[in-house]
């Protein structure tokens, strides 16, 4: 079982149900990734629906948390997008909660981190990218393309500026998805590596066993850091979406 000691083993997608013959994955195969997507959805829904069940004037703990999430994302949308962003608030909220719950559930030992898979984060980023682009074209029409040729730039710079702006625009979904995925991947791998050190150093026996405390301290500190990153990356994903959206809905007409 040398394979199971690999720090990347935790990211393996395993089929749990609806598998094809000889364990091959099919389109609807229910994997551990699917399970944690469902758990993230259930978790977010429980917090927001079960947490708000009393609709108290003076909120309890769970209701405070639900309202805090609401106010946090609503404030983010209000400040970054403005009144035009109101209709996109449910999407950004769902995005934030889905990523936050996926990241947080991934912190549970032996669990699976949905957002550590590039295909998932890339799909989310592509949805954001396509959505924002379509909104921008729908709202601004031909003016959308002035984005690639900012006002005031001399005409002879166009051959340089326009390709740069287009590449920068097209690289948005890549940077957005890679940032989240790489953060999750690196964090969880580091944790696993240091946790492996604890086991192997204790396993050496004698005086060396005692030194196993050092990577343990490291793992503890890293775990705290990972919780911060889990929140921070959900925030970064949501706020970048807001900024892209703000550009689309508040584009100035020259």
């Amino acid at each position, binding site marked *: 079982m040398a394979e199971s000691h690999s720090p*990347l083993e935790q*990211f*393996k*997608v395993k*089929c749990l149900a609806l598998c094809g013959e000889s364990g*091959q*994955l*099919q*389109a*609807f*195969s*229910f*994997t551990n*990734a*699917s399970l944690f*997507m*469902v758990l*993230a*959805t259930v978790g*977010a*829904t429980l917090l*927001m*629906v079960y947490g*708000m069940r009393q*609709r*108290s*004037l003076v*909120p309890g703990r769970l*209701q405070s948390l*639900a*309202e805090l999430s*609401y*106010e946090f994302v609503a404030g983010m949308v209000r400040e970054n997008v403005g009144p035009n962003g109101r209709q996109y*608030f*449910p*999407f950004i*909220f*769902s995005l934030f*909660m*889905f990523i936050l719950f996926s990241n947080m559930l991934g912190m549970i030992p032996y669990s699976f981190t*949905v957002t*550590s*898979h*590039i*295909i*998932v984060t890339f*799909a*989310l980023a592509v949805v954001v990218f396509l959505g924002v682009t379509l909104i921008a074209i729908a709202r601004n029409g031909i003016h959308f393309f002035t984005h690639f040729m900012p006002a005031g730039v001399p005409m002879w710079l166009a051959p340089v500026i326009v390709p740069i702006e287009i590449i920068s625009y097209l690289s948005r979904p890549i940077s957005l998805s890679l940032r989240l*995925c790489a953060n999750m*991947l690196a964090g969880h791998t580091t944790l696993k590596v240091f946790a492996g050190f604890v086991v192997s150093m204790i396993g050496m026996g004698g005086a060396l066993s005692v030194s196993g405390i050092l990577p343990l301290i490291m793992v503890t500190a890293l775990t705290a850091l990972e919780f911060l990153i889990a929140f921070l990356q959900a925030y970064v994903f949501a706020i970048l979406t807001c900024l892209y959206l703000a550009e689309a809905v508040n584009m100035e007409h020259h």
Partner: protein
Amino acid sequence: MPQLETATFLPQLVWLLITFAILYVLMAKVALPRVAEVVDGRKKRLEHDLEEAARLKRETEKAIADYEQALAQARARAQGIAGETRTRLSADAAALRARVDAEIAEQTRTAEARILAAKQQALASLTSVAADAASDVVARLSGAAPATDAVNAAVAQAMAKQN
């Protein structure tokens, strides 16, 4: 690296679509309107309560102002009544005094008149008494009674000299 196993891509995308779509619908249709209702309701309630408090404060201030105005009016009226009463009482007293003075003056006048009358009567009777006495004295001394007219004239002359 498990992330690069392309066979896992399709089921992950399919389940991402399913779960995220469900989450979006639940959030947009159920959870967020509910939270918005509670949060907005609380905001409205707070605003309403603050307005109510401000209104009550205004009412209190108005009541205090009314009270002070009423107090000032009552004080002014009390002073008015007191002044009026004082004026009326002093007028009454003055009238009474005037009446009493008048009565006293009247009585004094009557008494003086009576005294004067009594004095004149006394003087008159004194004249006749003096005449009688003078007649008697003359009769005793001369043995003959004088004429009444002569006696009366002599007495009147004597009394006029006296006065």
